[in-house]
């Protein structure tokens, strides 16, 4: 299918997902206002809408209800009708507004923006020029997306066939269904996979920029760290196109950003953050420990901010619920595949313990490759510095990176493939998922979020029923505060 034929379908798919996301209360007109900036808020809305639709389509598949372009178009139209008709005066008559903080962008900010735009342009250029894709796309992720529907019905029967044994039928289906959604239930063509990758990559940049600002980073740091993200192997290594690693990083970053917003907001941000994080196990198996680690980070960041129990429940409840459903779906709906932990895993662990230093050296060799631009030593340095300086946010974020890497290392030691081959096959892609998290940790350390977990000032304007938040982190002292919509 040519790109020109795929484009209207992709635009339609994105509009449907965005409409559903906005209809369920996310986005710039949500309760928290455009807390992360309009682009990041629209990205969060898209993530929530796409996730809701993916899970809805899988549920329809279980019920035998066909997926058709008409069904998706109808859902999208209804969602946009709700969005357009809705009037949102705010919570309980109180309008939460976002003050306009006027800052004069300095030379460093502009330089950062130029480098970020250049890095994005370079990434898109390479994406268009590179021949795609890797073994995993043809044999696993892509083939599932292209074959999962027969005569409009979700039909996973092919996964049980002998010739698809290498397709890892037990892997989560979130991303194949996402591609199917974004092509409005038609068979996704080559262009759709590339365009979806570009779309999520651009959305991730917006979310990470907003995330760095949210953890107290200055505007220049946000632009610079976003540029480093785009130059990292998560983007630059085009083997990831058509695989699930970038989507996993995208949803993890969206969940984290919304979770960070929820630390200051009283709206439904915490619940929505939990939903986003609960979607991670629907994308990849390693999404399960990643979701657990990120929920823990958000819970720990929220400690001492009041109403800890309610916030913990709001984040962990949906995350646990959706993660549990993902495990149940894999257990009872998907055909069983080969398990990394099959055979005598205890014997393997005992036999490999003496080789652990060699495994660590091998992993270190991969992570210290110049392609990473020194990111991992920086994250390690961030962890040490944050602990020494008692900076909770960067310490927890960098700690989350290390925890997830430790989980990966554990799997390498326990799983049946020889550790060296296993590392060569997966370490780059596994680590690349953690780049946004590492970048946020560095941003938090560079920011002035040391006094409070988020380094922000809460301002109440008496008599007007409006609660304001003024960013102090990274803003020059000459910043002036204007209040709009009063």
């Amino acid at each position, binding site marked *: 299918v040519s790109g020109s034929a795929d484009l209207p379908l992709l635009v339609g798919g994105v509009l449907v997902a965005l409409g559903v996301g906005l209809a369920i209360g996310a986005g710039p007109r949500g309760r928290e206002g455009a807390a992360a900036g309009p682009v990041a808020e629209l990205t969060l809305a898209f993530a929530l809408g796409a996730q809701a639709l993916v899970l809805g389509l899988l549920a329809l598949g279980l019920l035998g209800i066909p997926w058709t372009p008409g069904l998706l178009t109808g859902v999208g139209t209804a969602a946009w009708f709700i969005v357009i008709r809705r009037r949102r005066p705010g919570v309980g008559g109180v309008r939460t507004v976002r003050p306009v903080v006027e800052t004069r962008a300095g030379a460093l900010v502009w*330089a950062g923006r130029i480098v970020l735009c250049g890095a994005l342009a370079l990434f898109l250029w390479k994406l268009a020029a590179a*021949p795609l894709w890797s073994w995993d796309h043809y044999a696993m992720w892509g083939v599932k997306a*292209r074959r999962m529907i027969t005569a409009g019905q979700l039909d996973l029967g092919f996964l049980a066939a002998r010739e698809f044994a290498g397709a890892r039928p037990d892997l989560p289906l979130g991303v194949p269904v996402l591609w199917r959604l974004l092509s409005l239930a038609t068979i996704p063509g080559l262009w759709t996979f590339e365009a979806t990758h570009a779309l999520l990559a651009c959305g991730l940049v917006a979310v990470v920029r907003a995330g760095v600002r949210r953890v107290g980073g200055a505007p220049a740091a946000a632009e610079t760290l976003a540029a480093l993200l785009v130059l990292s192997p998560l983007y*630059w290594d*085009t083997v990831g196109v058509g695989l699930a690693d970038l989507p996993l990083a995208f949803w993890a970053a969206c969940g984290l950003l919304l979770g960070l917003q929820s630390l200051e907001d009283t709206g439904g941000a915490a619940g929505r953050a939990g939903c986003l994080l609960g979607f991670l196990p629907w994308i990849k198996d390693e999404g399960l420990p990643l979701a657990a680690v990120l929920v823990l980070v958000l819970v720990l960041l929220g400690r001492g901010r009041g109403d800890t129990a309610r916030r913990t429940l709001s984040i962990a409840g949906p995350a646990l619920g959706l993660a549990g459903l993902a495990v149940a779906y894999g257990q009872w709906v998907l055909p069983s595949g080969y398990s990394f932990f099959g055979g005598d895993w205890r014997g393997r662990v005992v036999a490999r313990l003496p080789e652990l230093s060699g495994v660590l050296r091998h992993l270190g060799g991969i992570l210290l490759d110049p392609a990473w631009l020194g990111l991992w030593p920086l994250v390690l340095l961030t962890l040490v510095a944050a602990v020494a300086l008692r900076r909770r946010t960067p310490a927890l974020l960098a700690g989350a990176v290390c925890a997830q890497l430790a989980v990966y290392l554990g799997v390498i030691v326990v799983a049946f493939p020889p550790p060296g081959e296993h590392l060569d096959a997966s370490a780059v892609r596994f680590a690349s998922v953690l780049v946004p998290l590492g970048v946020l940790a560095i941003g938090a350390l560079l920011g002035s979020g040391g006094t*409070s977990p988020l380094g922000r000032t809460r301002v109440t304007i008496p008599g007007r029923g409006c609660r304001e938040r003024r960013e102090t982190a990274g803003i020059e002292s000459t910043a002036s505060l204007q209040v709009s919509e009063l």
Partner: protein
Amino acid sequence: VRRDAAEGAPLPPPRRHDFARLATALLLILAAAVLLERSGRLLVRGTTLDAQDEARWLGWAWRRPDLADLFTRIDRRLAPGEPVVLLVPVNGWPDEFWVAVMARYHLAGHAVLEVRRGRLAGPAPPGTAVVRILSDGRIRIRRPGESR
């Protein structure tokens, strides 16, 4: 002294801002240098596939640039859902396993029952289309029971 209204802690000293600005500037220089170096390479070569996993995997996947076109042509000549047995030339084509993976990917609406080099060992199962790819890229499709 400016204070955080929520927690009452003093705001960070300006020295931290200086450090953050310096660190940001250094990271920005690094990013700009990498951007320039990669731009130069892309301009000179058209594309660069030397990232860690690219070097490892793309060689396996991208062996025939004409593959998507070829399977699109085959797909157009098959009946919807028709099972397929695929025969590829003995020389000039990668191994059968690779061809089978690619065929199962590109012929999404069909069951690819078998991929062989050269000839079939026995009669093709009834109801299947035997697709022969010739070394010059032409395609011949035969169905059991059809006259040649």
